[in-house]
Each structure stands twice: as structure tokens, then as C-alpha cells.
């Protein structure tokens, strides 16, 4: 899943670095409104509408259930006893709801340490990416300077390289700085993002120049123009960057697996991975821990659903 986010990022940039930066027409709300109204009128004919919708509801209902089932099953398992989880005839509902499994998570696993690490690295990476990528993206989009084309090409070239190619060397660097098993080591390469720079450059290329020129005439310096005039206008793209960064940082596995070896310094994604195949752990407790580890991102998704879906689709389409 994290993979997919980063891949969407990669291919997005691969597909065409100079792609037309406008929002893709399909997402334009005006088109959507007109199109669906016209089509609604077409399907409004008696007889047809009911039939075709029934098929859609059956297929999407069954599909949607299969999509949600692992989550529902995880909730059921997290409230069962270990014996119920392992019984040959499945218990679709526990005899008694075992809420104590959730309390056990905090007693038997370094859950709070890992949660704190996950929150810290995700928040700091997101803020750092927003700041650094908007600054650089703005300069690449709106400023003229010597070597701009070459520097930009260097940054964007990273998007074509799979992460394994820089992983070993990133590890050597972090090890060399003595930062293994530290929060700084965990977040470090992720503070910088070529994808974010690409995204923000596209956003700024897309904004009108008039406001900028007016501010310049008023005597604002480039940083003031950027900070007060242009940054607020780039809000929608900053949201997209924030959403993709939070998702990626929270869910990412390989980097934390490599740079953190003791379980108290791991984020949740790697912490849970240490429980895989551990015969001594009790399944319901692991289910409870997994649910709590996913919860922040799932809640963010459910609260912001449209924005997350459109944002990720948008970053994918770019």
C-alpha cells in the first residue's frame, strides 16, 4: 500500500515531467455535474433504471463487503479469546466481548513508545516536506536563476529510481552519523521529497502571475511574496502533499525495519512486524494492537474521505 503511494508518485512523474499542470478535466466539478445530470435523465426512463441499479448494488455490495471483511473480522478477533480465534469452527461473534485485550496491548508491547515514534516522525516529515517542497517548488516554477534546468532535472531524476537503489547508502549514512535507533535517523531521508517538489512546482506553475506582480510593485521581497501571497493560493496542492506524506510515513515498513533494531525505538509499522509468526503471542492482543495502529490513518480517511480520495487520485493522475 505504501508502495502503491510511492509508485503512483514515481509513475506520475515518469508519465510526463512537463505534463500540462492543469487539474485533469475529469475531476472538474462542472463537467461532472452536467454529465451526470444528462445521464440521469437518460436512465430515468421507467423499467430500465431499476434493473441496472439492482445489478450495480448487488455487485458493489458484495465487493464492498469483501473489501471491509478483513477489518470487521479483525474487530471481532480483537474482542475474542485466543481459544475462540483458534477454534476450527469459526466464532462469528465472541461469547463475551474481551475488551481487556486492548488493555493487554499496553502491558505486553511497547505500544505507546511506538505510537509516539510514529506520530513524531509523521508530523515532522509532513511539516518539513511542506516547507522544503513549497520553497523549492516555488523557486523552480517562478524564479529565474542560473542552472535551474539542471538542478530541476537532477531532483526529478530521483523519481525514476526505485528506492532500493538508495537504501543501502542511506543506511550507511545514518549509521555513520550514529543515528541508528534514533528518531532523527528514522525520519531523516523522508524529510526531503522529490515528488513533493514536483507536485508543488506544478501547483505554482498553475497560479496566475498578476498577484505576484502587484505584490512586487508594492515592494514585497521574494520571501514575503511567497509566504503571504503565493503559499495560501497553493493550499489544495499542499493538502495533497500532506495526505500522501502522512499515509506513506505512517505505513512505511522497509526503512524503519532497517534502521531500528530495538522494539522501543521502532514506529508502529515495524513494531507490528516483529510479532509476525511469533507463536507465543496471543492473537486477539495482536489484532487489538493492529487495529489501534491503523486507527489514526483510517479515522483521518473516513473524516476527510472525499479529500483523501480526490487528493490521491489527483497525485496519481499527475
Amino acid at each position, binding site marked *: 500500500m505504501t508502495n502503491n503511494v510511492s509508485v503512483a508518485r514515481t509513475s506520475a512523474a515518469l508519465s510526463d515531467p512537463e505534463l500540462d499542470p492543469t487539474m485533469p478535466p475529469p475531476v472538474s466539478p462542472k463537467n461532472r455535474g452536467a454529465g451526470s445530470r444528462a445521464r440521469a435523465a437518460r436512465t430515468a426512463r421507467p423499467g430500465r433504471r431499476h434493473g441496472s441499479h439492482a445489478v450495480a448494488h448487488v455487485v458493489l455490495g458484495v465487493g464492498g463487503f469483501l473489501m471491509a471483511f478483513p477489518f470487521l473480522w479483525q474487530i471481532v478477533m480483537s474482542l475474542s479469546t485466543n481459544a475462540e480465534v483458534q477454534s476450527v469452527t469459526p466464532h462469528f461473534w465472541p461469547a463475551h466481548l474481551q475488551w481487556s485485550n486492548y488493555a493487554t496491548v499496553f502491558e505486553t508491547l511497547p505500544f505507546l513508545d511506538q505510537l509516539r515514534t510514529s506520530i513524531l516522525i509523521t508530523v515532522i516529515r509532513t511539516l518539513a516536506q511542506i516547507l522544503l517542497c513549497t520553497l523549492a517548488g516555488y523557486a523552480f516554477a517562478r524564479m529565474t536563476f542560473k542552472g535551474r534546468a539542471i538542478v530541476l532535472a537532477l531532483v526529478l531524476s530521483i523519481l525514476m529510481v526505485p528506492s532500493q537503489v538508495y537504501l543501502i547508502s542511506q543506511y550507511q549514512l545514518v549509521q555513520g552519523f550514529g543515528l541508528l535507533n534514533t528518531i532523527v535517523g528514522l525520519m531523516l531521508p523522508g524529510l526531503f521529497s522529490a515528488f513533493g517538489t514536483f507536485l508543488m512546482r506544478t501547483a505554482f506553475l498553475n497560479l496566475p502571475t498578476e498577484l505576484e506582480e502587484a505584490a512586487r510593485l508594492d515592494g514585497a521581497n521574494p520571501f514575503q511574496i511567497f509566504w503571504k501571497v503565493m503559499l495560501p493560493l497553493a493550499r489544495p496542492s499542499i493538502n495533497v502533499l500532506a495526505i500522501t506524506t502522512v499515509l506513506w510515513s505512517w505505513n512505511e515498513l522497509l526503512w524503519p525495519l532497517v534502521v531500528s533494531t530495538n522494539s522501543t525505538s521502532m514506529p508502529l509499522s515495524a513494531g507490528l512486524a516483529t510479532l509476525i509468526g511469533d507463536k507465543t503471542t496471543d492473537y486477539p492482543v495482536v489484532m487489538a494492537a493492529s487495529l489501534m495502529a491503523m486507527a489514526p490513518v483510517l479515522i483521518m480517511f473516513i473524516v476527510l474521505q472525499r479529500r483523501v480520495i480526490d487528493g490521491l487520485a489527483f497525485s*496519481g493522475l499527475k
Partner: protein
Amino acid sequence: MTTETLPKGRAALRERPRLLKRDGAWPWLFVLPLLIGIAVFYLWPIIQTAYFSLTTWGVFGGSTFTGVANYVRLFADPQLYSALGNTLLYTGIVVLGVPLAVWLASLLNTPGLRFASFYRVLFFLPYVAMPTAIAMVWRIIFNGDFGILNYVLKGFGITGPYWISTPGFALVAVAIVGLWSSLGFSMIILGAGLKSIPAELYEAAELDGATPWRQFRSVTVPLLTPSIFFVLIITIIGSFQLFDLQYAILGSPTTNPVIPQSLSLVYFFYQQGFVSNDKGYAAAIAMVIFVIIGIVTLVQFRLQKRWVSND
């Protein structure tokens, strides 16, 4: 015409150096914080990995330049071909989700469909879930003794395998989860493409007496080809980078004996570089992955170009 535009052109010429001067050091102040990070943590590592791939690492650290020795060893290593085959098998299964996503997306975009946003959330949920966390429940679902999947299969008279610990089935299990988690994202991208198809085309098709299936085949699919193509690229490249899900579902060789025969390319890389600590060899694997993904991308762009020109 030319005489009219000339003065303007000259003005622009005069304007440019002035702009350059006005921006002065500012652009570098804007770019440098990012650039330093990118140079240290991305650009330099790429060069260093290319060099590492030409070195052999001792057990106690230290490395010697050994030229193409790693590559010679790698191309003679049956594990490389096994990892490549496993990755292809996984990719093949996950790609089956693309036609499924086309169908589901076209149903989801039925005009006036109620609960559409609810369905959309359900299908997208797996995409945002943490792989290691959701893998935990998939391990229970796939469990050979008490998993619900085999329980359901038994209802159809099929005796399910020990999914996670049987060679072959282990990879299929991972691919099922891979398909499950990527379906929603594909559907959203395809949905955006579907919305751009003019409703008049469907009206015309309907006037001509086309059945819904015929409309799907003759209007939806051809006009959706660019989106389908894009989703294919993303799915294939993503599948070639399989690691998180595999590690999270199958575990490591110490807990699951089936791992050595089920390695994906990236897992093979991780195993060599960070478990066996053979960083020179792992660097060579990374370079091979880089080349393979580069070739896949190139081939796909060639195909895309051909398709575009035929259109």
C-alpha cells in the same frame, strides 16, 4: 507583423536580465535546503550504490573493489531467477485486478446510483490501511487449521491448503491481498476517466439500440484506454516493488521455511543486504531491479505511443 512584435521582443530581452538580477540570491535560498537533503540522501546514494555493486564486503566491514564479480555471481544465482519468477507470478495475479476494476468503476459511476460514496469508501479502505497491521488479520484468514477462508472453501467441498506455509500458495495468498489493497485506487483513477466520457455518446448508442454490455464494450472501454493504460503501468511497477505485504504476511525465514523459495526481487535484495549483510551483492541486485523497472517503463511507453498514434 514582425515590425510590431520586435519592440516587444526587445523589451522582454531587456526585462530578463533585470529579473535575474532582482531575484539575486533568493532562488538559491529557496532551493538549497531541499537540494542539500536531496543531494546527500538521494543523489549521492545512487552513485554510491552503483559503486558498491562493484565491491565485495568483508564480514567485519571494509570492502574491496572486485569489478563485475557481484554481477557474474548474481546472474549465475538461481535465487535471482526464482525471485524474478515469483515477482512475475505476483504481478500477473495483481494485474487481473485491472479489468475487474474497470467493471466495478463503471458500475460505481452509474448515474444517480445511491450510496455511491459509501461504496467508494469501502473499496478505498484497504489502500490506506497499514500493510503490517492488516496483514495480521489476513494471516488468520489464511490459516490452514482455523482460517475462515478454508472454512468457506470446505463448504464448497474444497480442502484448502496451508496457504502461508506451502510454496506457491504462499505467493498466491500475498497476491490476493495485493489485489484486494490496490483495487480501490485503480477504481478511483478509472472513475476519473469515466467521468470525462461525454454522456451524448451513451445517448447515441442507446438510440442505436445498443445493450448496456455493448455500450460498455464499444463506448466505455475504448474511451477509457488512456486511464486503463496508466493504471496498468502503476500496478505493474508497484507489483515489481513487492516487499511490505510479503514480509508482513509471510514473515521471515526464521519463522516461515517457505520464504527462501518465495522471495520477491525486493525481498531478495533486503535479505542479502540487511540480513546476510552482503551489501555489495545487494547493491548489484538493486541495480538489476533498477534496470528491470526501467525496461518495463520503456516498453510500456513504446506501447502507449503506438496506441496513441493508432487512435
